[in-house]
């Protein structure tokens, strides 16, 4: 079995561009959820989100394409993958909204609501745009996939990239996810009554829903022997990945968390470790009453009550949709690398139904050997990534 090393990280988050800004914000427990500026939220349930500040790049590209490009470039540079090597690097991108933000502007303007939309933006509406832009700009020409598994898309990209390396299809893969805020996403979650008017409070007894965010994160995955041979910096090992489907409901998770638990067990099985070896779960932790309760139940089923630390990065950067799984994977990798578990902020009164220490407010110094990152999505799409310390 070929082992998978994480040798490069890239992120653009509501804390700004770069992994350093992301980790600094997450480690400090800073909440980046603020009033929405990208579009009008009048009449909606909520008016806050976690926007990426000061995004650079050509405005001819969609915001989401720019997010993806910046994070992907950072990851490749961090791993020191040369231009020549990139011709054989796999590119797997988790995506949902594509360039919808700009397409909406055009569609809204066409309907007489708003101004400034460009017809040409419609070209980049589809999720696959990110992969095509990243490949073209950065010269990545190995196997290319755009995966859409709703809010677990970014994590699914890492899981499937790891499979390509394990199967010997490629030695190196660039995998991650990207999403920009869009009106449709914001309005949809508002209509479902899943948005908290205030910054979200995962695992709090008084939680009222999620906050939406945006961003992108990519990792370079590499066959471990190759990484060691070239003297690459190895952040962690991606030791296991589980992917399951509830086959239960299009929006609601299965109440008993069976599908989530199956994904976690599959990741443990692939890594060949016992549940007790895992010290930390970077939870999906959306702060909806239903998700947090069911995820906690699934964690308890697999690991036992209180058996590991649990925290939600979404309490700081919101739910970044297709980027969530990869941004949270980066946080999990850095938690292993820095011996520091990120906190859950805005958590004041722990929910008694959540039988775990959810690291309220302040990051915790803990030496970890293994950590998981959970990502779940509409359609009951469950992904668990399991990382091992190196």
């Amino acid at each position, binding site marked *: 079995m070929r082992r998978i090393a994480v040798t490069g990280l890239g992120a653009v988050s509501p804390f700004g561009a770069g992994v350093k800004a992301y980790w600094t914000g997450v480690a400090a427990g800073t909440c980046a959820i603020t009033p929405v500026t990208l579009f009008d939220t*009048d*009449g*909606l349930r909520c008016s806050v989100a976690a926007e990426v500040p000061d995004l650079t790049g050509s405005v001819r590209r969609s915001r989401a394409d720019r997010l993806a490009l910046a994070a992907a470039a950072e990851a490749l540079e961090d791993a020191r993958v040369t231009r020549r090597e990139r011709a054989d690097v796999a*590119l797997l991108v988790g*995506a*949902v909204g594509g360039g919808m933000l700009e397409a*909406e502007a055009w*569609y809204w303007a066409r*309907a007489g609501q708003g101004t400034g939309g460009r*017809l*040409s933006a419609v*070209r980049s509406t*589809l*999720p*696959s*745009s990110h*992969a*095509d832009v990243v*490949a*073209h700009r950065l*010269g990545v*020409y190995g*196997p*290319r*996939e*755009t*995966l*859409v*598994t*709703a809010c677990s898309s970014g994590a*699914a990209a890492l899981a*499937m990239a790891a*499979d*390509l390396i*394990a*199967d010997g*299809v490629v030695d190196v893969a660039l995998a991650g996810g990207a999403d920009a805020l869009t*009106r*449709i*996403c914001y*309005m*949809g*979650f*508002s*209509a*479902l009554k899943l948005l908290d008017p205030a910054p979200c409070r995962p695992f709090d007894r008084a939680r009222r829903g999620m906050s939406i965010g945006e961003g992108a994160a990519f990792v370079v995955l590499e066959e471990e022997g190759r990484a060691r041979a070239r003297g690459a910096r190895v952040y962690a090992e991606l030791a296991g990945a589980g992917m*399951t*489907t*509830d*086959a*239960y*409901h*299009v*929006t609601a998770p299965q109440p008993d968390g069976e599908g989530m638990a*199956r994904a976690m067990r599959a990741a443990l099985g692939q890594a060949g470790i016992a549940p007790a070896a895992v010290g930390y779960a970077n939870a999906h932790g959306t702060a909806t009453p239903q998700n947090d309760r069911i995820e906690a139940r699934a964690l308890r089923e697999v690991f036992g009550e209180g058996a590991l630390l649990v925290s939600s990065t979404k309490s700081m950067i919101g739910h970044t949709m297709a980027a969530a799984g990869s941004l949270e994977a980066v946080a999990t990798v850095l938690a292993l690398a820095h011996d520091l578990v990120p906190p859950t902020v805005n958590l004041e009164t722990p929910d008694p139904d959540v039988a775990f220490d959810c690291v309220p407010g302040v990051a915790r110094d803990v030496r970890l050997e293994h950590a998981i990152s959970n990502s779940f*999505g*509409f*359609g*009951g*799409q469950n992904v668990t990534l399991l990382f091992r310390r190196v």
Partner: protein
Amino acid sequence: MTERVVITGLGAVTAALGGGSAALGAYLGDPRPVAPTIPAGTLATLIDGAEARRLSRACQLTVAAARLAVADAGLPDCTGLGLVVGSEFGDLRSTLEFADGYLQRGPSGISALLFPNTVMNTMAAAAAIAVGAKELALTLNAPEVAGELALARAARAVASGRVAMALAGGVDQIEPALAPVFAALGAPPAPRGEGAALLVLEARASALARGARIVGEILGVAWRGAAARPHGVGRGADTRAIVRALEAARMRVADVPWVYDSASGDTARDGWERTVLGAAFGSSLPPRASLAPVLGQSSAVGALRVAAAAWTARSGLLPGPPLRRVAGAAGLVHGIARGGSHVALVVGRGEEDDLA
């Protein structure tokens, strides 16, 4: 690939055919152009009343094709079944309806019911629920080649043991509102089609153990990115996907007796594909077929090309017009998309000695 991967079932709902492997064979023997849109009554016979009310049309197409495929394969249950659905546009109709609701009536016009359909995995989710598929369920988005790509990805997942079996293929529907937008953007006037086509893939040993009827085999797959601008066609002739798929199938270029390509009427893209195939095959380019000119371009047609290749491998017939007699127990399915997604599959008849 470690496990040999066979095709044991097909479910297809398009304007030209609704059914399984037998329906496809009958159609390929005499493929006639049809109106691109699926007649309204076709779905009514495949979906129950509650699903017709609850599911979007794109989801109904997918659910119907999934059920037909499972029945065609004679699967006793769907334990261990994964899903890989390719789509170029997803459920764009629901997305437009969702936006129109807001634009016409303000916040009170936002539909919580339509919202999940704006996420492209909605078709895979509906199909997973309908047939009880509980393993991985991927939706792959790509221009033009999403159906073929989904089958290549699913074959890899079965071969490596990620899933025991997979339901994989493509779905797209015609969205009339898009035609003038694409025309204004200068898109080529390639004929569009619609439908869903899903194949059941299984490890050969498992299929034989349960006494399944094998209708074909995926002998080798590869997918890559070829150099091209986003939305554009490339200038180069990158043949790596073809070479690697043939290597996996233990075949040489000279062994390929026929090809299903992705020619669709997009002149620039079709020309690029001819360049790539020309670079791979030289002056001995084998006879080719593509179903898009008669069925219209959609992700379903990409999946149907794989099923059709299995039919050609068994029947020795390559659809036209005119219908041609060809030799060889395996051939190539090839697709290349604007933007550079490139996929190749070697498809055989599924006999024991095909990978000798």
